[in-house]
């Protein structure tokens, strides 16, 4: 547990060539083939994460943020979900073209995931200790006793009191916050380089949420892990993220450094989202809203998917899909008027 990796950039691929980023998703397309038609859930998503940084993927329900994570982990249900295009490169190797066995090795050791609902993600008929030790037995060939020893260390690491005795408990005997710690312990077991946390605190109370977010930040720092934090909570993002990717209808509409994004959002959706939050100085006044509803993914609007709800929409928006335009630095925005927004005071 003590081997702290040193930050190295650029990451070297297996063949020794520079492989760019630690984890890089490029032009990913995923569709769900359902009885009602084809739902285009992800339409050309590209993002990357490097060692030691936290990328927050922000979006409302149905924006495709969780499906992207499932595709990275290789746990997308097929059918109905199909990857139709794109690549996911981890240390330069494409996970999507890899063989099953090779990919399994990446899962847990290379990239691990913390799920939202720990109660349904843990197996209710086995003790927590058994489930963590199983990882070490299957993947590291350890004996049962050694596995349990490592499991105790992990529960200590995630600050579960009386770790040794709690190994014998079943998931339902833990509180929500403690269960989430168990999930984090399991994700960390094989020392992953990238941790994907999919709404890790959504089901928790605020005081417990704060504890878990602190724990994740601490572990990320200590191990120099890359972290992808998937959430819809603008508050949590502002607290922990380095960079943010905002998703809408299966596309990234804006990407920026956290301060830049909150300071001067350059996509009308981000702008409207931040505007709709209850704020101190607007008490008693009407809140700004985003009119209409998130789009039905079976019928995504033509042109820019956000145009029916956009305050800035003009004719071009319904006919032409805006490309993700670079605005300098790590900033980009998929809006026809991105430069206008970027240039404003």
């Amino acid at each position, binding site marked *: 547990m003590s081997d702290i990796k040193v930050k190295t950039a650029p990451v070297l691929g297996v063949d020794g060539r520079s492989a760019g980023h630690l984890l890089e998703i490029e032009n990913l397309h995923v569709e769900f083939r359902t009885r009602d038609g084809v739902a285009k859930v992800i339409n050309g998503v590209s993002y990357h994460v490097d060692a030691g940084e936290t990328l927050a993927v922000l979006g*409302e*329900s149905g924006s495709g943020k969780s499906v992207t994570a499932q595709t990275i982990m290789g746990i997308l249900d097929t059918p109905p979900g199909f990857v139709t295009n794109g690549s996911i490169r981890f240390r330069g190797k494409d996970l999507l073209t890899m063989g099953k066995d090779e990919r399994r090795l990446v899962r847990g050791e290379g990239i691990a995931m913390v799920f939202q609902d720990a109660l349904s993600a843990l197996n209710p008929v086995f003790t927590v200790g058994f489930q963590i030790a199983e990882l070490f037995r299957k993947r590291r060939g350890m004996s049962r006793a050694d596995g349990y020893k490592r499991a105790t260390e992990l529960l200590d690491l995630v600050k579960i*009191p009386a770790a040794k005795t709690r190994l014998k408990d079943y998931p339902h005997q833990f*509180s*929500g*916050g*403690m269960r989430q710690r168990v999930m984090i312990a399991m994700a960390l077991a094989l020392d992953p380089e990238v941790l994907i946390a999919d709404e890790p605190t959504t089901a928790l*109370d*605020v*005081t*417990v*949420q*704060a*504890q878990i*977010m*602190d724990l994740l930040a601490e572990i990320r720092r200590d191990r120099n892990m890359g972290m992808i934090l998937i959430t*819809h*909570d*603008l*508050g*949590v*993002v*502002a*607290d922990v*993220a380095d960079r943010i990717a905002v998703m809408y209808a299966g596309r990234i509409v804006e990407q920026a450094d*956290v*301060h830049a994004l*909150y*300071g001067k959002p350059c996509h009308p959706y981000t702008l*409207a*989202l*931040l505007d*709709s*939050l*209850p*704020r*101190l*100085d*607007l*008490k008693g006044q*009407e*809140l*700004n*809203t*985003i009119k209409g*509803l*998130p789009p039905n993914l079976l019928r995504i609007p033509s042109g820019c998917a956000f145009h029916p709800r956009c305050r800035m929409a003009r004719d071009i928006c319904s006919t032409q899909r805006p490309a993700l335009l670079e605005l300098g630095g790590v900033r980009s925005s998929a809006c026809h008027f991105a430069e206008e927004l970027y240039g404003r005071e």
Partner: protein
Amino acid sequence: MSEVILEVRDLVKHFPIRQGVLFKRVIGQIKAVDGVSLDLHKGETLGIVGESGCGKSTLAKLLMNLEKPTSGEVRYQGRDVLRLNPADQRRLRRNIQLVMQDPYTSLNPRMTVGDIVGEPFDIHPDVAPKRDRRRKVQELLDVVGLNPEHINRYPHQFSGGQRQRIGIARALALKPEVIVCDEPVSALDVSIQAQVMNLLDQLQNEFNLSYIFIAHDLSVVRHIADRVGVMYLGKMVEVGTDDDIYVRPTHPYTQALLSAVPVPDPTVRQHKAVIRLEGDVPSPANPPSGCRFRTRCWKAQEICATEPPLLQIRPTSGHPSACHFAQEKDVVHAG
């Protein structure tokens, strides 16, 4: 302040814990709500915040008379709701309505929207004569911002935000004076939350409604509430105007809660007082003696274990606070 419309005095609800197969013995009590008092004035919004298990939803059920309290009183316009004869009780309950949290499970999937919103008229037929009902339901749909022509649709044909509007229309049907909103926006996406909150605000002005607004999201409560009560383990620990609670909190739990709320502004990362509570909320079956918060409190002393602090105005707190060591502390300096 305007007249008090709803008065709650020492409301207690204990749920028995039973064990055994045939002769179920009572082996303990879950103290879900344990001595809560509050006043709701006409036209005001009283926010209730607290974490899960603090008893805020049980409180809502007690106010609605969906649960019988173990002891205590709920007085509506001076009359004790719980001790009326059934006919009077029924008539009186018209005036207090509920909007529930989950718009997916609180609407019957086999009923059309018209039937759902019109059902209160079946129960209270003297409110609207039969031939008027369809028109009334359409009016209600219009009031909450739904298309009146959608009266024959089923709940699954609506989005989450629209379903919550259906729930609100149903609550409005009998022209109530008080609406208890139990987490009305927590199941909705951010962009939809604002729409529903604006609607609630606008209805309050239009019909002079009083709200009890229960939520765990402190920023939502701050926006909508005139006064706020903070609950912890079945007790009210602090009550005051929104500024009392958010700017001048004196109870350590309120302070910790405020400090834990993530602020959607990365520039306050450094300026926030970080108070991190240890552990989880204790079980309401076996709450700590004295002050219930003492097991997680950094100020706890001997007196806290022996003497339960009363919810009262103290020399160090201008508004009622249930802490022996109440002390003002500005936690969030944003804005």
